[in-house]
């Protein structure tokens, strides 16, 4: 059910700084809200986002309850080599969602 959208340029020149965007569908329920009957809505959040290029970490982020639902991450990376970018989101129960995109550096 989880949807992931990635924006990675297909090609880049060596040394160029490229913009990477990653969007995932997730409720990011903070745990501080209450339902219409006063019951606590359980916390359900992603706690970690990581992006690898050919296995080497390029970007990582810890998520906390104040991050909105369907979090969008935008970051910049200096294009050094061609390869596959792996995007990985891990939630508080260690469930993992991931997707990949390739980039060609000339």
């Amino acid at each position, binding site marked *: *059910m989880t*949807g992931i*959208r990635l924006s990675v340029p297909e090609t880049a020149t060596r040394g160029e700084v490229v913009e990477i965007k990653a*969007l995932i*569908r997730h409720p990011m329920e903070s745990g501080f809200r209450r339902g219409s009957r006063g019951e606590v809505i359980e916390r359900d959040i992603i706690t970690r986002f990581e992006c690898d290029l050919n296995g080497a970490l390029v970007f990582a982020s810890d998520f906390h309850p104040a991050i*909105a639902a*369907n979090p*969008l991450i935008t970051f910049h990376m200096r294009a050094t080599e061609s390869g596959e970018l792996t995007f990985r989101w891990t939630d508080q129960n260690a469930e993992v969602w991931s997707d990949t995109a390739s980039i060609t550096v000339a």
Partner: protein
Amino acid sequence: MMRILWSSALLVAAACTPEANRPEHLEIAPDQIQSGYAFLTSETQQLQEDSFENPGYLWVDRGAQIFTAETDGSPACASCHSNGLEGAATNYPKVDPGTGALLNLEGRINQCRVEHQNAEPWPYESDELLSITAYVAEQSKGMAMNIAVDDTNRPYVNQGRDYFLTRRGQFNLSCQQCHTENWGKQLRGDTISQGHGNGFPAYRLEWQSIGSLHRRLRDCDTGVRAEPLPYGDPTYIAVELYLATRARGLEIETPAVRR
């Protein structure tokens, strides 16, 4: 003395009948009609404009998967609608020629499921129905809403307009009082919009999710402390039709981002 009392009692009774209470039907001048987009902050407008960052596309993507997927041996939507459904959303809600009932896009999709795909209709506001509706409506993005009032749909338009004009709830407000008479003014932190449905299903920041026009109508009814109607209620579909005639000419923005 008695006669004066009697006549004033009659006057009070006359003022309380629904006919006397019905406000005048007002319309926004055609050159003044503005999408809800015009009342957003520039940041929210940018979020809607960016076809990657707009979170509504998460549902559109899922709708595209549903559209092409064959389930349980029944044909996929795409096997009939191989050229897509561009422009379809501009004509809904529409009177079904077979049953005479008014169908919105959600209702039409569910009718297709039952009649051609041998499947159960999706519940209103389910993830599947929202996704496929957003996907179908998105194909008409940028096209003008185009419903003409004719003899077949006129009774439904009038029914929807009646709902729009009727004061309701503990606040005793009609839709018209905010969205026709006072749009552009501030209501606490918000600017009141004209109440058009051209972006629905829309991603609302308040919901942190996509939702149907009926969910929005329920929020409005709750906002004036009135009892909201159930999802998919025929009266809400008639309101949806009236709103579409009222918004004629506005471009469809699905999936729009709203506050």
